[in-house]
């Protein structure tokens, strides 16, 4: 089993006719994802890799029963596309698009709040349930099926650690990329809650990085509510103050967003924190006995 996505999930690809959308659609299909439709306004009636293209999410939902959507749409179009897709009744939206204006992200998050939909991103590398399906750009060969839940702010760092885990025989139930923007649609603690409730996840690995206070907030959730063991890694102890490190949200401002703050919050919550990526494997092995 898994969270949010499995081989049956009926997936819609928005921005399917673009260069990235087309290429990623082929990779997702090859992996086994049940892609039922694509959307690009004005391109309804076309096909991409055998997938029918519609003009709107509402049409794709009505005609193909799409229930989850992955976005490869331009940043300026994400806000309207999100509203339209939420209104169409899709229950999961994965926004791979980078450089979404942060005011738009706030508006989207506010619009989604109280509605029955989960959003990942912006700048999400995607979500993958190994051996079943993937939405987004995560390379399938870096993940193996198993019972570890993985949550990552960064794509490449998720690959790094999941490959290390897989090499030790520790596959993943689902790996989720929450993105590293200043305002993620879904907070780390909400994803932890989903893994905590998943019968096929034994332990959750958090792959964090400098910036914001997602980890600090999640630590409180872990201490008070989480029943499963959690292991964490935080990248960026060598990052200087005031410099944005590639990701829009990866910035240390004064004492805020430092690895030190995150690590001590986790340690107070009883979460063991790996010093370097490979140490995650040892900590997971210790926890699982």
């Amino acid at each position, binding site marked *: 089993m898994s969270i949010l996505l499995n081989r049956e999930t009926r997936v819609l690809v928005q921005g399917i006719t673009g260069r990235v959308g087309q290429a990623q659609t082929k990779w997702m299909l090859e992996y086994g994802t049940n892609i039922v439709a694509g959307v690009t306004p004005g391109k309804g009636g076309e096909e991409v890799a055998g997938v029918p293209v519609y003009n709107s999410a509402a049409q794709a939902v009505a005609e193909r029963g799409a229930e989850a959507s992955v976005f490869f749409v331009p940043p300026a179009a994400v806000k309207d596309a999100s509203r339209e897709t939420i209104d169409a009744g899709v229950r999961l939206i994965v926004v791979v698009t980078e450089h979404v204006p942060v005011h738009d992200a706030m508006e989207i998050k506010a619009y989604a709040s109280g509605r029955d939909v989960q959003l990942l991103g912006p700048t999400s590398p995607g979500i993958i349930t190994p051996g079943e399906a993937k939405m987004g750009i995560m390379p399938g060969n870096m993940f193996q099926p198993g019972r570890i839940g993985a949550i990552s702010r960064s794509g*490449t760092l998720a690959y790094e650690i999941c490959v290390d885990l897989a090499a030790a025989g520790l596959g993943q139930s689902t790996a989720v990329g929450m993105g590293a923007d200043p305002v993620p649609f879904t907070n780390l603690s909400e994803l932890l809650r989903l893994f905590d409730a998943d019968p096929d996840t034994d332990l959750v690995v958090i792959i964090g990085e400098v910036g914001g206070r997602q980890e600090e907030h999640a630590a409180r959730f872990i201490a008070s509510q989480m029943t499963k063991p959690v292991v964490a890694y935080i990248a*960026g102890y*060598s990052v200087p103050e005031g410099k944005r490190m*590639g990701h829009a*949200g990866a910035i240390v401002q004064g004492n805020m967003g430092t690895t030190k703050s995150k690590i001590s919050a986790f340690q107070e919550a009883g979460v063991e924190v790996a010093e370097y990526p490979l140490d995650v494997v040892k900590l997971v092995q210790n926890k699982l006995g």
Partner: protein
Amino acid sequence: MKLYEFEAGGLFRQEGIPVPDFVVTDSPTQVRQATEKIGPPVVVKAQVLTGGRGLAGGVQVAESPEQAEEIARQILKSTIKGLPVSKVMVVKKAEVAREFYLGVTIDGLIGSPMVILSTAGGVSIEETAKTHPEMVVSNQIPILSGLSLPGAEKMTQKAGLDSDDSARIAEILHKLYHVFRKYDATIAEINPLVRTAKGEYLALDAKMEIDDSALFRHPDLSILPEDRIASPLEKKGRQIGVAYVELDGEVGIISTGAGLGMATMDIVSQRYRPANFLETGGGISEELLYQVMELIMQKQGLRAVFINLLGGINPIHEGARGIVRFLQEHPTNIPIVARVMGNRQEETRQILREGGVEVATEVATEKCVEHLFRRLEGGR
């Protein structure tokens, strides 16, 4: 992207926030002339994209036009936190009766704007929040409805302001929130907002940062982010479309992802100092990696390079050709070690080996960086 005080002040004024008249110039003579016109005493303020100017001598009071000119000359020659000062602002010194702090920022966890009001102005809000939390009122604003004037008044009343202050400051707070929304700001701050001895309200400082991802919506700002990057190498990075951060160490780093790049920096930092952070992003091509090599090799005092290519479905083999072509055209003696994983990894490794790059074949980055350590410590 940070705005200069005079730019933020200009936007504030356009939206009806009371900002005192000012002159901005790079000429000490003009500072003298402006002071003659405004009438001393004036304040001469360095225009730099960093906080803490006051402590660094970047804000000084002048009692005469001659003194203003002299202060301007001195400030224009100085650097503040490593940033050269190219412009100063001259403004009439206000007679301050009371100071306040007004700010709007983003709460990343809640995902909404946060409006902050403090009855202690002129000091950092972080400091006040720690020492006098009772003087700070903050409020998360539901972004879809926004901050209304009555909403702003509730805040000023909660802060315990008397009726005159309350009504006028609520109005300014309401306008500040409007500027924040209108220009896609991540921060909009007035510190301090003052009530003068004459009972006027004035924004004596203006701070604003605009979301880089939203600049496309504000062509009217006609501000190029490249123009405000002090490091020539960081400027070059932005031009070729990679995230490059200049650091003061000796090991150059290239990474195909941001998180991976930070982890690689951490690992290298066990024994050496990184010379840079560089993330290529997903658009890997031969040309891009050629330019990336050209960029990182320009750093003075570079002793080694570690390249972390975690390809996924990126064409890393094409990137490898760019790296090798650069090295053929610009032979170097410093060790270059690469870690390669992902799509077409064997082909990529072969291209790099033939180009004189040492390829580490272990799975984990830690193990691969050890190859670099060995090379730097004289082994093979």
